[in-house]
């Protein structure tokens, strides 16, 4: 049913339809509305779940860890500092192969404090062994949560659904909210593999000495890689059941005969698509590769769709300080060494700390890389604010 609805509310309703048994979260802007809505849904008895109000994100993650290890379908949501505070547990959940789903309402990281959107927070968790799915809009954000539980439980890997804070979480858009019955048909009940249960005592969270640790990481890495199939399958399944494409590995837009391709992820692709359409009218062939699954990284897909494209620009809302664009380096890595020589892959950092990314800035970026490759540039940088002596 199509509803004009806040992104957070849409996500909350979809999460609820997935029937998590245990929800635990700690409030942080811009995630708050999601958990408030869920608290209400549980409170009103519309969802039979334990909603645990904890004293920190660290505890929230630990509670869902425990719950999942005890056989519950478990869910949490956070942002920014909250995700960083969870960091230890985030790694732990993956290592323990617990199929937890967590929403990251993407937000910048302190200091300086900022409550506004960028993707530095989830980026900071990219190596943890979590599947990371990035939503373009609230429809996809909602849909991805339904897929996330299925992917997680099939792969025994945790899934983080990333949606841009405020831009999506607080935006009212029409979203097609599925019927609970549809979700039930799509998402089978959770059949946990290993749980703490006195009837069949298991040891969960054992420690591994150097004889075993390396292999556990290798196995986890391979599981991440292999989850590609599941992500695609579940997305295809979803399309079949719900009649729309959501998620998957990557999506492309007007790529076919593009001379220049923008690679990006998250809500900014909406603006990019608009720009592409306008430039098309102006006779310029610009295409888009939109990354939905940031982890596992769709390296082969990217290569396949971009192997003939010689001018690529990566636009992202995060940075590895002292190194540069993170997504950019992932994209650069997607091409075999030999093929990189005359291919230009430019890197733009944009929108950090909630800075608006106006169409004009994007146009500027396209025009600039048409002329020459850009190693790294901060889009929309106000040089007038920067003192020379700080550089």
């Amino acid at each position, binding site marked *: 049913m199509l509803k004009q609805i806040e992104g957070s509310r849409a996500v909350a309703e979809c999460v609820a339809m997935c029937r998590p048994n245990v929800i635990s979260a700690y409030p942080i802007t811009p995630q708050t509305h999601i958990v408030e809505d869920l608290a209400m849904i549980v409170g009103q008895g519309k969802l039979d779940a334990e909603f645990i109000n904890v004293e920190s994100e660290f505890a929230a993650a630990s509670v869902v860890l425990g719950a999942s290890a005890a056989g519950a379908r478990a869910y949490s949501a956070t942002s920014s500092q909250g995700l960083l505070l969870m960091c230890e547990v985030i790694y732990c959940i993956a*290592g323990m192969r617990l199929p937890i789903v967590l929403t990251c309402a993407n937000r910048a990281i302190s200091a300086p404090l900022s409550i506004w959107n960028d993707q530095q927070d989830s980026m900071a968790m990219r190596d943890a062994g979590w599947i990371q799915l990035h939503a373009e809009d609230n429809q996809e954000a909602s849909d991805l949560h339904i897929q996330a539980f299925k992917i997680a439980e099939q792969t025994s890997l945790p899934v983080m659904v990333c949606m841009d804070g405020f831009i999506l979480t607080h935006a009212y858009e029409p979203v097609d909210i599925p019927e609970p019955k549809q979700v039930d048909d799509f998402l089978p009940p959770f059949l946990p*593999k*290993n749980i703490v249960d006195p009837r069949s*005592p*298991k*040891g*969960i969270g*054992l420690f591994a000495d150097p004889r*075993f640790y390396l292999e*556990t990481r290798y196995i986890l890495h391979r599981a991440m890689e292999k989850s590609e199939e599941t992500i695609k399958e579940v997305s295809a399944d979803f399309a079949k059941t719900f009649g729309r494409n959501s998620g998957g590995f990557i999506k492309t837009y007007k790529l076919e005969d593009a001379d220049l391709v923008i690679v990006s992820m998250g809500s900014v692709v909406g603006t990019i698509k608009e720009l592409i359409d306008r430039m098309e009218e102006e006779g310029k062939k610009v295409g888009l590769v939109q990354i939905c699954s940031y982890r596992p990284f769709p390296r082969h897909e990217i290569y396949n769709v971009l192997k003939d494209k010689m001018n690529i620009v990566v636009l992202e809302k995060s940075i590895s300080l002292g190194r540069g664009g993170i997504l950019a380096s992932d994209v650069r890595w997607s091409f075999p060494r030999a093929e990189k020589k005359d291919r230009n892959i430019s890197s733009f950092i944009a929108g950090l700390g909630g800075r608006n990314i106006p169409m004009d800035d994007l146009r500027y970026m396209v025009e600039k890389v048409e002329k020459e490759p850009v190693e790294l540039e901060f889009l929309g940088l106000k040089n007038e604010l920067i003192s020379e002596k700080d550089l």
Partner: protein
Amino acid sequence: MEKLPLGLVIDLNQVVPYKTGSWRTLMPVNIMQVPPCTHACPAGNDIRGFLRVLAEKEDYEEAWHVLARTNPLPATCGRVCPHPCEAGCNRRDFDSSVAINCSERRVGDYGLEHNLEHKKLVSGRKEKIAVVGSGPAGLSCAFHLAKRGFKVKIFEAYGEPGGWMRYGIPPYRLPNYILKQEIDNILRLGIDLECNVKVGVNIPLDQLTREYNAVFLGVGAQKGLGIDVPGKDADNVYTGVDFLKQVNSGKWMEIGKDVVVIGGGNTAMDCARVSKRLGANVSVVYRRTRMEMPAITAEIDEAMEERIMFRYHTNPVKLVTDEGRVVGIFSIQMELKEPDASGRARPVPITGSEAFIPADTVIMATGQAVDYDGIDVQTVDNQWMYTNEHLMTSMEGVFAGGDAVAGLETVALAIGQGTQAASAIEDYIEGNVESNLAQPPVVYSRDLNTYYYNKQKQFNKEAVSIHTRLKNFREIYPSFDLKDIIEESKRCFSCGLCFHCGNCYMYCPDSAVKISPSTGGYEFDLDFCKGCGLCAKECPCHYIQLTLEK
């Protein structure tokens, strides 16, 4: 190699535990040790053993059998033994010793009350052994040999068996029916007893050596010795043992109003107390002080309670006679000088301190000697019989024990030697080389962890009033309550042997103390024991000790 499971999650029921035993440098071992009570018990009684049976199972019958393994006369010993075991008891350092002697008596009495019978270990051996004398030494030797299947015959010079237990110790301390029942019970093992036969007089010793595979001499020290003073041969002068022998044979003695007993040993005490019961005023004359008196403290105390007069530092110099009868003694006061060879202060007369003590009867309880009449064996200093370390006398195949060998000792010691001699005789007959098993060490208070024991008052036996006890020869300590003795047995620390407190089992941080499926006792699982020593430290009774790992 096992494949790694998903998330490294494993089924805990399938775990093969890692063996930490290889870390160990010290190893706990169970070492059964000799408790000091047993070490001090001349009969070698398994005191801890019978007390544990009482404490854990409250089973008097089993306790009796435990005691009877070493001692066929528990009811007797329980009455007359000076109980050196209690002096040795580790519990003395904690509060007060366990009342072992009373417990032994109660168990012995229980055996008699319930007609418990001794069990033969082996039956039907053809070898024959002759035992001379039916005192505790002879009875014990006969008992242990009969249990091992030998054909045993006892030759006894007197009309009834028992030696000094029968004819020396008065019935108010050891009722005759108790002794008789215990002896009968021993004889029921198939032992022949022939009384009124004095070996060496009525039947030559070599006849026995010829007819029997071995002979045991338990002839005791039956001859009373007096002191050499003028007047000693008067009619109304007796040696202590002769006096008691007559009284205990049932003869009524006319002893008159005043009786003087010379000496400070147990015989002197018995003579004095018997005389008192025969109605006399009794004084005991002794050269030194109470401190030096060889009699058991309790005996002296009881004698004093019974208003017997003690004259210390007093030495008889002459018995004053009138018409062949003594009418009193002349004595002289002594003072004590530096100790003599026996370690006791040496009495020296004080000139001019002579005094006259009137007496209708004088009893000289001043020593006994072996009666060697017709028994021609080598002696030590012309006094006690010589034996080698296997208790064999100078005659091949003739063994000896008890007072005749050890000097004036105790019933328990005689029993112990009888036991020892029985083993030696068995070895002799079987041609066994000496089996010299090293005795386990003795466990002392300092080895125990007394934290786990609670202070508790000792069982106290109650005598009948002086008034009633002096009226007759009835036993002065009435029977003890079974329950009281069970309580008392629980005071035993079980020094040196596991009493299943479970400490090691509960305290081992490695769960390396297991319950043995075969014995139900605790045992170490050396696959896992790290040798930390906690079990040994917390074992109350020192049954666990740490040794170096092999």
